[in-house]
């Protein structure tokens, strides 16, 4: 019979104490996350109750002090930014991983990985600075004003390439060596082995990494705040200035009150749920792979 008492989960042995400590830390972390969610939901509730979910989607514009609460243009901008960044970063990230693992000469592997990690660790505000001073003026030369959807997409892509690359590397490396020997023994060349065996075998891990990178792009605030122009409008072209949900919160939170403030929490809640959904999808992909 298995007992369900907590004490039997954590017996009084060194192992038991360690298990208890780890369990407590895990509970604390997830508990805090839950509290944050509850708090955000609590703050958003007045708006959800008095304004209603429908109006957030149906109001044409965002004039929260005049009673117009349309989030759709900003939702669309957030999605366009994330999708655009992924379109660039996903193939580049996978290519980076494949290059480092299978094509880079031996001496280059370690420094190259360092470079990828450095890019992963670069504060987004620094990337934003670079975007603002270098990229935006360049884009402005093609089509003013420069601060636009495409500027955001490019810098976000740069930011999430390492996420895709690191996840893809892990997935590619977890393909057993024996698969390579088998492929070689069958007279398959490196490209054939990569395309037909290794990439399909790593597919779900790579997809998980891409989803995670998408979640990161969706949630990024600083970069988009600095270089996308912050005008609330539908993203109808690459050179259109847009405002993402995240930057909206950062821009207006300081002075918002009442329904305005609550509706910012609604957009925060929506973002959180979207990111959770993406991370969850990424997680299921990985679990299936290891099943």
């Amino acid at each position, binding site marked *: 019979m298995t007992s369900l008492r907590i004490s039997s989960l954590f017996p009084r042995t060194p192992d038991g104490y360690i298990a208890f400590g780890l369990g407590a830390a895990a509970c604390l972390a997830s508990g805090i996350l839950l509290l944050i969610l509850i708090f955000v939901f609590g703050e958003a509730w007045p708006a959800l109750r008095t304004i209603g979910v429908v109006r957030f989607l149906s109001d044409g514009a965002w004039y929260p002090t005049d009673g117009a609460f349309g989030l759709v243009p900003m939702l669309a901008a957030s999605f366009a930014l994330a999708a655009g960044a992924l379109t660039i970063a996903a193939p580049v990230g996978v290519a980076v991983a494949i290059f480092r693992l299978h094509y880079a000469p031996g001496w280059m592997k370690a420094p190259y990985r360092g470079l990828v990690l450095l890019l992963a660790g670069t504060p987004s505000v620094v990337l934003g600075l670079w975007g603002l001073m270098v990229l935006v003026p360049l884009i402005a030369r093609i089509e003013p004003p420069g601060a636009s959807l495409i500027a955001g997409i490019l810098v976000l892509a740069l930011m999430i390439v390492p996420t895709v690359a690191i996840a893809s590397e892990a997935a590619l490396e977890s393909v057993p060596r*024996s698969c390579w*020997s*088998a492929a070689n*023994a069958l*007279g398959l060349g490196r490209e054939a082995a990569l395309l*037909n*065996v290794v990439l399909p*075998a790593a597919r779900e891990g790579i997809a998980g990494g891409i989803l995670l990178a998408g979640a990161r792009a969706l949630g990024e605030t600083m970069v988009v705040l600095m270089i996308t122009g912050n005008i609330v409008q539908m993203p109808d072209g690459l050179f259109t200035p847009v405002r993402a949900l995240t930057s909206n919160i950062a821009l207006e939170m300081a002075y918002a009150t009442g329904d305005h403030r609550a509706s910012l929490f609604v957009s925060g809640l929506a973002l959180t749920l979207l990111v959770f959904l993406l991370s969850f999808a990424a997680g299921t992909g990985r679990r299936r792979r290891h099943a």
Partner: protein
Amino acid sequence: MTLGPKDEAAGEGAAGYTVGPMLAGPECCTPEPVIGVRGLAVSYAGVPALKHVDLDIYKGCVTALIGPSGCGKSTFLSSLNRLTDLVAGCRVAGRIEVDGVDIHGPDVDVQALRRKVGMIFQKPNPFPLSIHRNLDMPLREHGVRSRDERESRIRAALSDVGLWEEVADRLDEPALSLSGGQQQRLCIARALVLQPSILLMDEPCSALDPLSAETVEKMIVGLRGRYTVVVVTHNLAQARRIANFAAFFWVRDRAGALIEFDTCQRLFEAPAHDLTAAYVTGRSG
């Protein structure tokens, strides 16, 4: 010339499974060398693993490589299809001829060589793809365009390893969902589907449970005559059951060396060398 001790075993083995059309051909082996090895020496990062090996492998026969661990049997095996090329720091000296062609020659196409000389590993290593794709993909990569031909070769190979009956209705399931023995037979089918003439097997049964091992062993016996098989085994009883010829390797001067090569029967019953006698009777190794 006497061949292996149990030529009749081929008949026994054949009864247990379907032999596909691909296997149609002569039953017996002919004492005609198909692989000729002269003065082979292999070293890893300067450390010799194998020295001065001269050996002929006969066409259509099963040749067992026996000897203790670390005596260079597996190294010898993987130098035959140049899989040693992939090991960093590995150097191969000497001459290996397959069908009279020096495999280290300047215009040798390694991929074509490996297509002719198939290899089975100790641990079953099917690709993490469907059963069907495991066989279909290598065919496609080797330029077999016709879908009908691929399908018929896949069916023949699966029949040859006795797997067709077991998997015909679930070809699209993952190969990794098969049992260990089935996976190993799938790997053999994957080698057979490319229609090699030589099969190298590195302890093909040692990672399997006894029943699966027996099935695979019977299958190897069934391959005798149609394929030239070189098999590394630690199981002496198995070597006696399946092999026509046996080669005994031993560590000498800190490197593997070929001590004795003879028909399986003579090597086990009247070995010429003391080391062989001690090993096959279990007094050493």
